[in-house]
């Protein structure tokens, strides 16, 4: 495909590729969590989604609070470094305003599900879960004898999301996406998914990607749309671009404790804005300046020329 072919606005990418009832994974372990995509899904009032993430984080608290989800698949449910996700807890503990189905694993179990999904395997084995109540709570975690001796393992099923949304520092117009810093399980989630949206801080020429192919996490061949959306991970972060906004994570605790205050937040910061560019502007340059990291460059390497 020619340069420019897959580039789309967030609005169009979400409208075209995220459908009611889909299984959606917005991955990124603390790092590179694409909040802007979650906000657009809320804004377009998608419904009945099954949301998958190792750590649902504040983004899924916002999405669950906004009513887009009927089910959550996860391995650690909290506001990292802060405490609880109150909108999700209300639905799990008290079914307010309605119940939320959950399917729960450990971190390694969730990672292995994506690995199985990416490789189109029927299951993936791991040594976790013996002696834990998790297999009783989730019958999709199954004890198996190893066919080659060496005791028993536990099998987890593949996870093949309808849509994976992954954020990266830079990508070309075909969706060849380069990531540095924490890699999480974005590569596995993208290969496992039926459709993939890559969101990038910067759109770069393919030559930039080709000069450093070891840094490519996701190849354009599995990508359906490329959205250029700087600062799309706030209040999460992008290594080398902006820091985690810890104040936001702390403030979210009070916002989400009460359904009405959460609704007001959504009105002000999601429904009341038409795009992430407006969110960035509304947050203000002072806030962004406070999140700017210092510099720490790597050395470059010689790939060699073999013509």
């Amino acid at each position, binding site marked *: 495909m020619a340069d420019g072919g897959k580039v789309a606005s967030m609005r169009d990418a979400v409208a075209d590729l995220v459908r009611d009832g889909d299984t959606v994974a917005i991955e990124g372990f*603390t790092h590179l969590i694409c909040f802007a995509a979650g906000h657009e899904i809320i804004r377009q009032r998608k419904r009945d989604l099954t949301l998958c993430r190792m750590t649902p984080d504040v983004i899924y608290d916002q999405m669950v609070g906004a009513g887009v989800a009927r089910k959550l698949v996860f391995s*650690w449910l909290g506001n990292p470094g802060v405490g609880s996700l109150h909108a999700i807890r209300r639905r799990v503990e008290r079914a307010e305003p309605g119940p939320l189905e959950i399917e729960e694993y450990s*971190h*390694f179990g969730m990672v292995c599900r994506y690995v199985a999904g990416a490789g189109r395997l029927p299951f993936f084995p791991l040594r*976790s879960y013996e002696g*834990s109540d998790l297999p009783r*709570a989730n019958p999709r975690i199954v004890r198996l004898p190893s066919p080659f001796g060496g005791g028993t393992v536990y099998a987890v099923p593949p996870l093949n999301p309808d849509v994976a949304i992954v954020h990266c520092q830079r990508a070309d117009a075909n969706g060849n996406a380069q990531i540095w810093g*924490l890699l999480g399980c974005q590569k596995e989630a993208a290969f496992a998914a039926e459709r993939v949206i890559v969101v990038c801080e910067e759109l770069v020429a393919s030559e930039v990607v080709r000069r450093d192919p070891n840094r490519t996490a996701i190849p354009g061949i599995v990508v359906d749309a490329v959205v250029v959306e700087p600062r799309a991970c706030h209040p999460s972060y992008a290594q080398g671009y902006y820091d985690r906004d810890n104040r936001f994570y702390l403030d979210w605790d009070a916002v989400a404790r009460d359904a009405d205050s959460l609704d007001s937040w959504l009105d002000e910061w999601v429904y009341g804005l038409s795009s992430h560019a407006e969110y960035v502007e509304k947050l203000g340059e002072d806030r962004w300046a406070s999140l700017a990291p210092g510099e720490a460059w790597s050395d470059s390497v010689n790939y060699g020329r073999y013509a």
Partner: protein
Amino acid sequence: MDDGAYTATEMMIVASARLLEGERVCFVGVGPPNIACNLAKRTVSPDLELVYESGVFGAVPARLPLSIGDPTLVTGSLQATSMFELFAYYLQAGLIDVGFLGASQIDRFGNINTTVIGDYAHPKVRLPGSGGACEIAINARKVFVIMPQSKRSFVERIDFTTSPGHLSGERPIGWGAGPSAVVTGLGTYRFDDATGEMVLATTHPGVSMIEIRDNTAWDLRIADDLAETPPPSQEELRLIREELDPQGAHTR
């Protein structure tokens, strides 16, 4: 705070850090374990390699990480890898000497609940769940637990086993040794090699046996050589207050 005075959390962190003497590769949790590991690196165990489940080996955090995936963990580290590789090639393969876990409930055999209070399907309190704890509990060579102690956390029977400890007294062949220490705001505990049962090893300064028993829901075993935990030194307190947690986010 006056000179010499310290909080229960500071005592807990200092006692945990000292346990890391002689250890090489440590799987770090967020919050107090994170401060304890970074304190150990500056005191008893300068060569300690810090591993974070977010995918970092050999972290040298320049600030107190705000979460387990803080960008400061990556800059200057030895490897930033995928979570699959971290869990499979490091943890499951047995490269981790010590894993730190927190707990909402623990029983006398060190079995841990971080999933629910109450019934799983209709929980009274929905807790975060396993994260990496279930696999750390099984695969780390040994496990240290840091947690607050009360009758609601030191319980006769945990509501849900998220992470197995010594089960009912012994662990399957092929696993790591399991919980070898528990550190609370009241004291430190070890586990009997033969029975897998938790034993009170030291009480923190100023903590009475009555207080320990009032905050334990089972009939607790006491070590024959029960001692008092040495209080934090001025240098340990200085490192915590000036370098590791200057805001007092986790220690005041």
